[in-house]
């Protein structure tokens, strides 16, 4: 290392090269080609009939799946971004997490000419087809039943109960008492936050994700929620979406 570092006065290390001016020399100033021609490129043999049929079958199957209810459309925002990703964070960031936040005001608004475009599935539609439930783990069953499953019913029942309780409370208690009760509830929430978190989150997502189709469990149009007394949203305000896992 030490001996080599000093440049000799004669030349840059190459044999027979001097520092003298050479008028005939030409500088290669062109940038190198990004995709130089392949040195050993051969044209593949033409496809046989069998291969063509296989390709045809494959394409047909693909398009059938894509038209079916189980396919979910890509939401990747930038197709030209490098395909290589390092780590999960970067991988996950490629995809849109919240369709409302990533709404494109120029193309996102549906126009009349788009009425014939195929519908975009955010999540697969599971309600339209029969499933053999015993093959699925139990925790997936609600998803198979569509959102009109147990959770929704539970939610409705709970809302009704609350409504009844509130109405009963309105009758014999003063508004001050009600205020105190809400405050009490607010303070008691963090204790059982973990238990309710999953439930909570799901409800919240159902409202955001399913875009008010028939599977949705009510969302904005659920009149019952106006009688919820705001209790269910107390965490939603603090949560601010699903980006705060860590």
């Amino acid at each position: 290392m030490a001996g080599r570092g000093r440049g000799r006065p004669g030349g840059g290390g190459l044999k027979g090269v001097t520092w003298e001016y050479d008028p005939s020399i030409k500088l290669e100033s062109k940038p190198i080609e990004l995709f130089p021609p392949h040195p050993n490129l051969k044209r593949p043999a033409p496809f046989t009939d069998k291969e063509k049929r296989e390709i045809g079958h494959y394409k047909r199957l693909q398009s059938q799946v894509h038209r079916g209810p189980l396919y979910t459309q890509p939401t990747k925002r930038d197709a030209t971004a490098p395909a290589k990703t390092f780590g999960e964070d970067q991988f996950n960031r490629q995809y849109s997490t919240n369709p409302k936040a990533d709404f494109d005001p120029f193309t996102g608004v549906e126009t009349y000419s788009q009425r014939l475009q195929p519908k975009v599935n955010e999540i697969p539609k599971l309600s339209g087809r029969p499933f053999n439930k015993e093959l699925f783990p139990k925790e997936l069953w609600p998803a198979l039943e569509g959102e009109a499953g147990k959770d929704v019913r539970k939610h409705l029942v709970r809302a009704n109960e609350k409504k009844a309780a509130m109405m009963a409370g309105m009758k014999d208690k003063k508004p001050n008492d009600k205020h105190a009760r809400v405050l009490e509830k607010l303070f008691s929430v963090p204790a059982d936050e973990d238990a309710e978190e999953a439930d909570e989150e799901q409800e919240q997502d159902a409202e955001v994700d399913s875009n008010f189709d028939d599977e949705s469990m009510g969302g904005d149009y659920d009149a019952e929620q106006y009688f919820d007394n705001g209790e269910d949203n107390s965490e939603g305000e603090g949560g601010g979406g699903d980006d705060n896992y860590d």
Partner: protein
Amino acid sequence: MSQSKHAVELCALLVDETYGELTSRIFTILLRRGRLTIPLLSKHTRLSPHKIRHGLAVLVQENLVYHCFDEDTNTTHYEANPEAAYMLVRSGKIVEIARSRYGDLAAEIVGNLFLSGHSTVKELVSWYVARLAEAEAKRKREERLANGLNGQSKAPALVQAPAHPFPTGQMHGMLTELLESGLIQPLSGDMFLSPTDTYDKIAKETLKEEYGGNIKGTKQKEELKEKIRERLYALRSEREWKSKGKKRALNGNHANGVNGASKRRRLSNGAVNGDHYFEDDGTKLDPNMLVRVNYEKCTVVLRNSRLAALASSRIGSTTAQVYEAGLRLIEKSIPRCRLDLRIDDIKDLPDGSTFTTMELTATLSKSVKTGTGIGTVSSDKIDTRKLEKARKSRKRSDEAEAEGEASEDEDVSMEDIPIANGNGNISEADPDSDSHGDDPFDDEDTRTKSSRRAKVTFQDQLPKPEAAENRENRMLQVKNHLLLLAGDDCDFLRKCGSRGLGEWTVDFEGMTQYLQEVEMDTMLLENFGKVGHRLARMMRKLGKLDEKQLPNLALVKQKDARTKLAEMQMAGVVDIQEVPRDSGRTTGRTIFLWYFDVERVSTILLDSIYKNMSRCFQRLDIERRRVQDVLALTERTDLLDEQPEKYMDQEQLNTLHEIEDKEESLLGHIGRLDELVAIFRDY
């Protein structure tokens, strides 16, 4: 599958390509992280549990994940099934197999199973009935339309096949046939347990039941292992489709019986055009039975067609047809290509399944002209014109027969096969048969008749149906083809007995090895030139070689050899081992041994193929995005079933054709790469 980076990437892309983004994101994380629960999945993918549940439901439905419920912790773990994901790329091939063998209906069934992952017999039948009704309605509509235009155009309507009177029976028959062949398999709930989980479960049970919880010593350990293996084996054979007794009597045996004959005719002729009539043989499947595509069996079928293609390129198309028929005979008893060490007993394997010449002749399709494809003399002695004369004369054929008998009596001495080798028959016999049509047939006839007179013992063994002469003649020809196959350098067949005019078996491992070697050689030749190819082959044959010996053996200059070897070492194809001759480890007193590790090279090769396939899919995606506006036009809901010519202008049509060509070439390339993957991994 090895969980290399490129394999993971490819699987993720395949799932993305087929089932969309949500499933693919979940699947990728499962592949990368191993088994996970829903909360963990949600943490890693940043998707809501609600979405994850939906995605997982799709993945389970399509058999892409295993799941396992842990009772102790009350959680469900999900695990990716990379094999199934990879098989998505082969879906086109599998549908094509079903179509070429059992007709369009079978292809549709298999296609439908690919769409739905798995479904019950009931669903399949109702789907088919609905589809038939739809087609019928459409036909009527068109008929009415045609009649409205011009009153007497009844003809096109009549040409179309009328709807089957008993679609349910037809469907059940077809499904039974597919189940018999093994292309589809019944599905049970425990198949969603991953192989490792199944093993653990069985191991735990066995340990508890047989040994009361703990074992001592290596002997008991071995015993336990054996018992687990037996149980797993039993479990697997329990899952397999077993045909009912009645069914087997009806058309299980193809070789004889009225029903068998009709079936054979159907397979050979009807299957090609697809509108054949199905007899409703009264077989009814349990309507609640679940079925799905059996990938393992499909691989076996693909391997057979690959071997037939090899035979076709090495020997000739007729021989390949005979070979394919033979392979199909033993296909029934081969459920999978590679044995699972944990399940199959590798110690006392039988000699593989065999077929006899007689069986083969009986099942061979009539459309295969066995008389063609083989020259009758050693080709280097006589030119074609002389050959023609000689074959016509009695003397010539007698001579040939005499030689033929000799070879038949001996067991497998392949040196004196009376038939020309591959090169000979391609150059001489084929043009002959092409130009003269039936001529070679006549030749063969006279030839073999005389042989019958000469051989009395031979005649006695045969059953004598009405077309006995023709059949014997055919059998001899088939036998010649089989001898040719056995005599080839690749050892397509091995003779293992003399029952039924010769009993044959196939050594699949040897064949696969041969295929692998051929592909590897091609790769080496392309990448490292003649010298590199030669060096690698030498090392493969001779083992580890000293650096000093190599140039002498390979007949290249030492400098060239060294450069080449260094280049190959960089690519990971060859490697070096140092053996010092003294403790000083000086370079001068060290032996450098070069070696070529076949297994390692095939792993590297496989990985680069995965990478190549991923790149193809990515390129496909980019190309599609470039012409998104045109493609979106074809996807419009009102134009789905219309011809693009009707609504596109010229420029758009050109773009569409361009992208279709690109798609085809990329997908075709992927299909060919998949063939390589199959050779190195699956066969």
